[in-house]
């Protein structure tokens, strides 16, 4: 069901002027592609791409017990964060099902920013508010999603381009760290966060800024990037890039019916050192052994198993399902992720799986992502 009116980001007029193909996504009218998915994909792998991902949600958690509350919500260890550091994590329900995957930014010991998926903003905020009401931590939640724009500058040239628009020591920002320039210090933004993070498998930055300045930031980066091969890139390329990198997408690999352990996210689920909503269930699930596991695959036969395609054994008996599938622009083959039984006969890299693509069984090989460095 589509909402009657779509929300737009501050950069919407720019996308339209660039002739982007627009599509409803998570209630927003978003650019899917400009010059074409393959062209944009290769630009990000070889030079750089600029994405508008302002539809993402931002929730601030502030107060004396902000850290305790964040830790109560997320599976990763928030106590390990220092000021200016971010982490990737998941929020779970009590039954271990994933509510969302998100980034947690520690601005200081009493202020954290949680960056959540656009399609989950309402659900996540409700989940957080319910958890807050129940546990009674001394902190406040502030959903400022509509006041924050987010641009992602991604690719091997991203930092070179950034160096042309600012004298700030951006090159010194370590991976999964960020800086907060003084008001006005970054392209006139009153509030900005420059974060060395991304969703493409390339080096890059994610730039949070206020709505009023987003178009200026976009224009400055595009102008500086021209000689570096920078291209505007849409959600289509964002998806093929993240899939080549082997990153989970909420709604595909992660849902309320999947837990982060079977999704291969055990590395951000700290069951031994932390406690959080869903931890008890996940400890039991881990002790009992996982029933299924997310694996990556590269197609040997020509064909692309898409989301929902059945994974079968050699005889064509269904054993699992594809969660994401696409052509890999870099490999020139079909790639994807999907759930199979947690049995070495299905999960060992090099194993041949079959995929029922419109009635034909096509062969693919279990391959550990990232795919774009595979082979």
């Amino acid at each position, binding site marked *: 069901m589509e909402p009657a009116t779509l929300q737009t980001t501050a950069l919407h007029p720019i996308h339209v002027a660039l002739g982007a193909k627009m599509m409803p996504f998570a209630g927003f009218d978003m650019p899917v592609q400009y010059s074409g*998915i393959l062209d944009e994909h290769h630009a990000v792998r070889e030079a750089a791409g600029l994405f508008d991902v302002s539809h993402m949600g931002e929730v601030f958690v502030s107060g004396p017990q902000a850290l305790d509350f964040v830790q109560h919500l997320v599976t990763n260890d928030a106590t390990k964060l220092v000021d200016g550091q971010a982490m990737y994590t998941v929020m779970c329900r009590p039954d271990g099902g994933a509510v969302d995957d998100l980034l947690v930014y520690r601005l200081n010991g009493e202020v954290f920013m949680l960056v959540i998926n656009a399609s989950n903003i309402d659900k996540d905020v409700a989940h957080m508010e319910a958890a807050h009401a129940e546990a009674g931590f001394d902190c406040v939640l502030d959903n400022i999603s509509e006041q924050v724009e987010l641009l992602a500058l991604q690719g091997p040239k991203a930092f070179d381009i950034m160096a042309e628009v600012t004298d700030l020591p951006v090159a010194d920002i370590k991976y999964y760290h960020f800086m907060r320039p003084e008001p006005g210090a970054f392209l006139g933004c009153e509030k900005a966060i420059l974060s060395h993070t991304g969703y493409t498998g390339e080096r890059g930055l994610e730039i949070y800024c206020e709505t009023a300045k987003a178009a200026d930031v976009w224009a400055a980066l595009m102008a500086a990037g021209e000689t570096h091969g920078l291209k505007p890139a849409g959600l289509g390329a964002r998806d*093929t890039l993240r899939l080549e990198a082997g990153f989970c997408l909420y709604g595909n690999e992660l849902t309320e019916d999947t837990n982060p352990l079977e999704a291969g996210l055990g590395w951000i689920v700290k069951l031994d050192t932390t406690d959080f909503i869903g931890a008890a269930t996940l400890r039991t699930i881990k002790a009992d052994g996982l029933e299924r596991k997310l694996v990556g695959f590269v197609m040997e036969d020509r064909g692309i198993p898409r989301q929902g395609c059945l994974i079968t054994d050699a005889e064509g008996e269904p054993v699992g399902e594809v969660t994401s599938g696409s052509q890999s622009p870099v490999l020139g083959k079909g790639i994807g992720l999907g759930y199979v039984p947690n049995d070495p006969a299905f999960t060992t890299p090099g194993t041949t799986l079959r995929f029922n693509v419109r009635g034909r069984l096509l062969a693919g090989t279990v391959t550990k992502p990232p795919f774009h460095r595979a082979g």
Partner: protein
Amino acid sequence: MTFPDDCRYTKDHEWVRLDDDGLATIGVTDYAQGELGDIVFVELEAEGTELEAEAVFGTVEAVKTVSELFAPIAGTIAAINEALDGAPETVNDDPYGEGWMVKIRPTDPADLDGLMTAEEYTHMIGADA
């Protein structure tokens, strides 16, 4: 977007052109290639395959989506565009020329008369506004 007047069109966004040798060349329209986006491969039934009208004669895989190809009219596949194997992007670049898909020998060339003209097709997709 262009829609040549010497082609007939289907609701499935394919074009058919009756050639001087009596064969009918079939491809997808400029509108279709644009909607599909970057085409990464085209799979076609073999030469000699007999097709009823509306029968599936191939699939077009784009990065984000897949679409089946339906025979606009009945006939027998006389040739397939093997060049698409190594260069599927030709469909995006030149949908009415080098990006053709198959040539069929029509069971009855008069069947083409039942298909849309360029003007009717343009109207159907709302590109005549």
